[in-house]
């Protein structure tokens, strides 16, 4: 096990999610993840474009002279630099699946449940967006919409998001369409929709809703959360495998079916990818053993094309 000191010297965004989650509360952990993530980002070639003035700040040694407000210098004889805010501030909605299937892990005590992983990923993603002054909101759902936080760009809004995420308990079934429909009410103009789910739901209905959002001009990113135990069937003893949401069950011996199962999963993921990309919807499979930094990078690349 890593010591706190050893962990402190490393970038949290690249460590094992389960190990990170044990370091502290969601706020601390998420900030650590985001700090690590941002420090590893390359310099953006688009920096300075499409921004508008936001406020003044006292000049400090090293600030670029081109940002010095010369008119204010003339009036006040003091050096101030201008600070800018992106003119087209992004409005983002995180849509989080909190159904019962999300509360499952294939390795209790070793891996986070999909919901726990999604909480931390959502918190980190929202923090990154808010730091960019993008208004960020949250919708949680299971078989119905549980919580809606409208998008806000205020820094303090992140704490509301954290509280909402922390209070998100696993529900029963999964019905994504109503939640995705509610996004339209929250994003009046074009924005970013991040749909985080294990996608164990009605695919046709979900695709229909996601396509609707894409057609409304929103940039849609689907993060397909999977436990590694769902990707690959393992085990020797015959067992009755039961769906916690529907109660549907199948009796089989995993070693007999592993190959066929893996092919089925692969085909299903391909079907999702093709079905979403056809409508310009970004799709990324994230397993719960993926470091958060990697997941964030994939998410932001898919969402903005820049990282």
């Amino acid at each position, binding site marked *: 096990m890593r010591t706190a000191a050893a962990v402190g010297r490393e970038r949290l965004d690249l460590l094992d999610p389960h190990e990170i989650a044990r370091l502290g509360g969601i706020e601390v952990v998420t900030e650590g993840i985001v700090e690590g993530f941002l420090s590893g980002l390359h310099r953006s070639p688009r920096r300075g474009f499409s921004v508008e003035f936001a406020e003044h700040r006292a000049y400090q040694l090293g600030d670029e002279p081109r940002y010095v407000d010369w008119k204010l210098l003339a009036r006040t004889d003091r050096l101030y630099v201008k600070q800018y805010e992106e003119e087209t501030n992004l409005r983002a909605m995180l849509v989080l699946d909190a159904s019962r299937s999300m509360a499952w892990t294939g390795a209790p005590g070793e891996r986070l449940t999909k919901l726990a992983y999604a909480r931390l990923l959502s918190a980190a993603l929202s923090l990154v967006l808010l730091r960019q002054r993008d208004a960020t909101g949250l919708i949680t759902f299971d078989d119905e919409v549980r919580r809606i936080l409208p998008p806000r760009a205020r820094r303090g809004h992140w704490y509301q998001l954290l509280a909402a995420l922390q209070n998100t308990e696993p529900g029963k079934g999964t019905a994504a369409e109503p939640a995705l429909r509610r996004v339209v009410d929250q994003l009046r103009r074009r924005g970013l929709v991040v749909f985080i789910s294990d996608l164990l739901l009605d695919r046709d209905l979900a695709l229909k809703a996601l396509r609707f959002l894409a057609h409304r001009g929103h940039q849609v990113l689907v993060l397909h959360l999977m436990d590694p135990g769902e990707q690959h069937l393992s085990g020797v003893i015959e*067992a009755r495998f039961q769906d916690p949401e529907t109660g549907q069950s*199948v009796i089989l011996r995993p070693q*007999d079916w592993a190959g066929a199962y893996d092919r089925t*999963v692969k085909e299903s993921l391909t079907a999702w990818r093709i079905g979403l990309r056809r409508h310009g919807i970004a799709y990324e499979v994230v397993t719960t053993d993926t470091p958060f930094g990697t997941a964030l990078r994939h998410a932001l690349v898919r969402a903005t094309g820049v990282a």
Partner: protein
Amino acid sequence: MIAFATPWALVGLVAALVPVLLHLFARREPPTVEFPAVRYLSETARVHQRRLNLEHWLLLLARTLLIVLLVLAAAGPTSPRGGAGTHAPTAMVVILDNSLSSGVTAGGVPAIDGLKKAARGILDRATADDRLWLVTTDGLARRGSREELKQIADTLRPSAFRLDLGEAIGLARDVLSGETMPGEVMVVSDLQASALTPARGTGAVTVAAPEGPIVANAGIAAVDAGAQPWTADGGAITVHLVGADTTGVPVSVRLGARRTRQALAAPTRPVTLPMVVQDRGWVPLDVELAPDELRGDDSWSTVVRVAPAARVRWDGGDRYLAAAFDVLRDGGRVVPGADLTVGSLGPGASLVLPPADPAQVGAVNRALAGRGVTWQFGALVTVPAVTDSTALLGSERLTRRYELKSAGSGETGVLLRAGGAPWLVRTGDIVLVGSRFDPAWTSLPLSARFVPLLDALVNRIVRGEIAALAAAPGDPVQVPDRTDHVAAPGRTVTVEGGALFRPISTGLHFLLAGQDTIGVLSVNPDPRESDLTRAGSRNVTSLWKGSRVVALDDGANAAFTAASRGDLRGPFLWTALVLGVLEAGLAAGRRRAHDSGRSA
């Protein structure tokens, strides 16, 4: 047909149930595991269930067959090998059943023809390297070349003999036991159930037998002329039939010169005909049945001894003797007279009993010696004994008896023994009995056998006459001591008195002592030959271990295969190996599918 060297190992076949039981056991309700992605499993099951089921059953089949083959291989399986001209050198004994029953005609064809044809076919398969014997009803194992034995077989006719198949197989096995090459016994027979007896020895036996329907037949089982000799009053003839023909069969009976009498009889219904006779001495009695498909058992020859009733003088003070002779006298079997004295030594023929007073034994012995009798009364024996069971008398308990000692060089004239010692002996017309006819000496006076014994003693034994003996052809018969010749039909044979004589033909055989005829041996077919009921294959295989039954026409193809059996362990083990590879391949395939799925 596959046979096994160690059939007890087949018990291991129970192990073949293990995969099946495991399969059934695995069908129990398994533990429940929570798994959200059941929809993927359902989809997978829908698509791949049939293939996986097929693989599963193939694996189960392969594993079960693998165990079965290994167990069978452990049991040492062998199978017939070779064919015409390809067999290994073999010592072959062909038993050709030309017994009386082989003379039956079915569809106009004698059964013997089919048997001979089958035997020729078997012999035709022999090669120069084989050693061949032929056994027929005469009980001899003839060694010869293929052509020599075929010639013998061709000339065979239905014999009057009965063939005991168990005895014949035992003889064949004895012959083969001295051979180094693989031995085989081929039995070509009509396979009468009555001919089946246990066979000594071990070894492969192939029975070629006809399969057609059995001919209904009736034959003469026995002819009973009652107590002999007959007196001038005549007697009664009872004819017993045997066979599967339950309908009435006309029976003709002719006694001496009397006209033939006829009646209707059936195997379940013997017929009795009262007869009168005018002749004296040995009177021929011929019984004939209406002809049927088996002619050999339709006639019966015997004799009836006709003589006047014995003129007997008996001791009226002996109440048991008196009561018995009263019965015989009332029945016309004896008349009071002085020809024969019963109880003591008389002037003529005598039936001598031990004296009631032991002090008189010496006097009796001296008197016997004076009459030239070689037997004398010895010491009194009080150790209980039982008489030997013979046609003359059954087992009778003796409490007291005198030893009967022979003064001659041997024990000639012994008629009956008790406890291994002579008890009833004869010298000329004097017969000695070891015990008094008293319940204190023997249970005989209280037995139903007492009167018939006295009848036989006074009417036949003391007279020196032997009642007609009966035998079947080939049966050993002990001829009386005085016999020196046997006049068989068409020939006269010199014999030694007291030795065994085997008649080889049916008919009347007169036993001669010099110029005197002292008895007749009636030789008639063994009644068991008349019952043509065929034995089933199961009877044969259970009675003769390692045997098999084939159709008569398949006899040639089945020859030279039982003794030369191929070892099937190799093929079984190779098949098991192939199955093992198949099983491993199937299992590995499933594992690969599992592993490839994981790495995908």
